[in-house]
């Protein structure tokens, strides 16, 4: 190993090229900084390579497969629908490649230097980057840490060829005939749902009372559960996964439910029980950065750590572990370094689950509003009463608007239904803009569109819905 003698100087050094890091790097470059990004893995981070994007690609392909077989009630018949999973994977790979290739070009086009290797802090103004055959020191004026997170491994479920984390599940070479998913959070539910669409026998073991319990209401989870069950999935809640026995051809998972021990056999077991921040092996102790007791990096409203020229963003700081939150913070950090007054200052971060139906939530839900001591009104309108949803033959779901009682201010929204992921954008904007139910109700929404459901939910809030009897 050759250690570079001469440190390379840069203005802003970004560690990690996920949706936090690469966005921060581009924004910093746009603001005139000389930027270096260090990435030990693949450009694009978890999100583009083994997270958001490949999972959604699999879900889409599964959706196509399922829909091709289930449009008879609309008069469309397909004789024999088959999956060539190696082709699904090749297509998924091409989607990922387009996006990661795109990010590389964007970094290049913005004159960001990309360095391959593992970064480790030396002091508050320098890091060492190591790769297989060399090490090099970089000095910087400011650094942005964006090292993301990794799947948590539980001792009784060590990852193997058949005990998979999300990355392993996304890389399977064929459709498994059966899979056990431990953890019914959004990642487990999305991936379990994708396999269920492809015909895999899916068993979800969830420890708490309900799947998707973090952030989504029972009513929403119930719709997803029903859909999963229709695809042959089994969902066991309050299930405590104990251990796994592995053979050449499969696994047997032992779990406990209501005090009883049970066993389930499958080709694979997928463990999705959470992600831990990648903050342990980057030399943070060298610079004395303050951590929370949960292993997260402490930051202020400008994403600045306790060391004033070092910033941290994304999955390693508090808040939801979501790509758009990482990117938002990336912009704030880059702008703060440029001396702008930018601050983390959002009213709401949307969260989406690409299940069937899709779930999306932004701002307060009923329970959260109550907990926050806000007198709130929840107003619901079903997809089943909407012409567009009916004409799509997809009516499973509702829009629920949360408004402040005193003045109708929109403070939250929950959507379950087809294209909930698209529909939530309007409500995020409404919340940020401080709009009221009246404003939404009085804005003309095109007919026939799903947006009319949102408009009607607003009319429900006002007590004058057209398409529902009060």
């Amino acid at each position: 190993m050759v250690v570079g003698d001469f440190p390379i100087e840069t203005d802003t050094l970004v560690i990690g090229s996920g949706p936090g890091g690469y966005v921060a790097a581009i924004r910093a470059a746009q603001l005139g900084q000389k930027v270096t990004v260090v990435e030990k893995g693949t450009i694009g981070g978890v999100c583009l390579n083994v997270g958001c994007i490949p999972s959604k690609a699999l879900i889409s392909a599964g959706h196509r497969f399922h829909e091709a077989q289930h449009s008879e009630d609309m008069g469309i018949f397909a004789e024999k629908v088959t999956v060539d999973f190696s082709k699904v994977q090749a297509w998924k790979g091409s989607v990922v490649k387009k996006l990661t290739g795109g990010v590389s070009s964007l970094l290049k086009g913005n004159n960001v230097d990309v360095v391959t290797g593992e970064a480790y802090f030396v002091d508050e103004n320098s890091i060492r980057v190591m790769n297989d055959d060399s090490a090099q020191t970089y000095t910087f004026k400011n650094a942005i840490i964006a090292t993301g997170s990794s799947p948590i491994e539980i001792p009784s479920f060590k990852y193997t060829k058949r005990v998979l984390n999300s990355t392993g599940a996304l890389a399977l070479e064929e459709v498994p005939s059966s899979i056990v998913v431990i953890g019914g959070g959004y990642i487990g539910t999305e991936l379990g749902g994708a396999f269920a669409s492809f015909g895999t026998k899916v068993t979800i073991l969830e420890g708490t009372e309900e799947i998707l319990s973090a952030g989504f209401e029972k009513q929403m989870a119930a719709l997803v559960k029903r859909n999963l069950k229709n695809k042959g999935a089994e969902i066991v809640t309050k299930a405590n996964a104990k251990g796994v026995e592995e053979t050449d051809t499969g696994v047997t998972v032992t779990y406990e439910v209501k005090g009883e021990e049970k066993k389930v056999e499958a080709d694979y077991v997928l463990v999705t029980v959470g992600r831990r921040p990648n903050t342990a092996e980057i030399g943070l102790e060298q610079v004395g950065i303050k951590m929370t007791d949960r292993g997260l990096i402490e930051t202020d409203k400008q994403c600045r750590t306790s060391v004033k020229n070092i910033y941290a963003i994304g999955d390693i700081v508090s808040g939801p572990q979501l790509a758009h939150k990482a990117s938002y913070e990336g912009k704030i950090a880059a702008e703060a370094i440029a001396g702008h007054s930018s601050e983390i200052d959002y009213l709401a971060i949307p969260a989406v689950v690409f299940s069937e139906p899709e779930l999306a939530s932004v701002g307060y839900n009923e329970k959260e509003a109550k907990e926050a001591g806000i007198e709130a009104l929840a107003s619901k309108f079903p997809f089943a009463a909407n012409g567009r949803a009916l004409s799509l033959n997809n009516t499973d779901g509702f829009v629920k608007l949360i408004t402040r009682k005193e003045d109708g201010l929109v403070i939250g929204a929950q959507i379950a239904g087809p294209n909930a992921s698209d529909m939530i954008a309007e409500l995020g904007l409404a919340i940020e803009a401080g709009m009221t139910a009246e404003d939404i109700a009085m804005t003309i929404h095109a007919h026939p569109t799903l947006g009319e459901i949102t408009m009607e939910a607003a009319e429900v809030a006002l007590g004058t819905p057209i398409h529902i009897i009060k």
Partner: protein
Amino acid sequence: HITTKHQAVRALATPFVRQMAREMKIDIEKVKGSGPAGRITESDLKQFKENDSFSREKAKQHDDK
């Protein structure tokens, strides 16, 4: 044309604020907005109304003299 907009240049306010202006019998085109891009808020309307009744009051006092 199947896409229409109502008028080219006009006072900016959310639909609810525009409705309030009508209810308060305020010509919204005369109100100066304090929000971004000159957006008129509820409090701009209240302010306008106060100033308006204030000046009318003054005019009345003037007449009385």
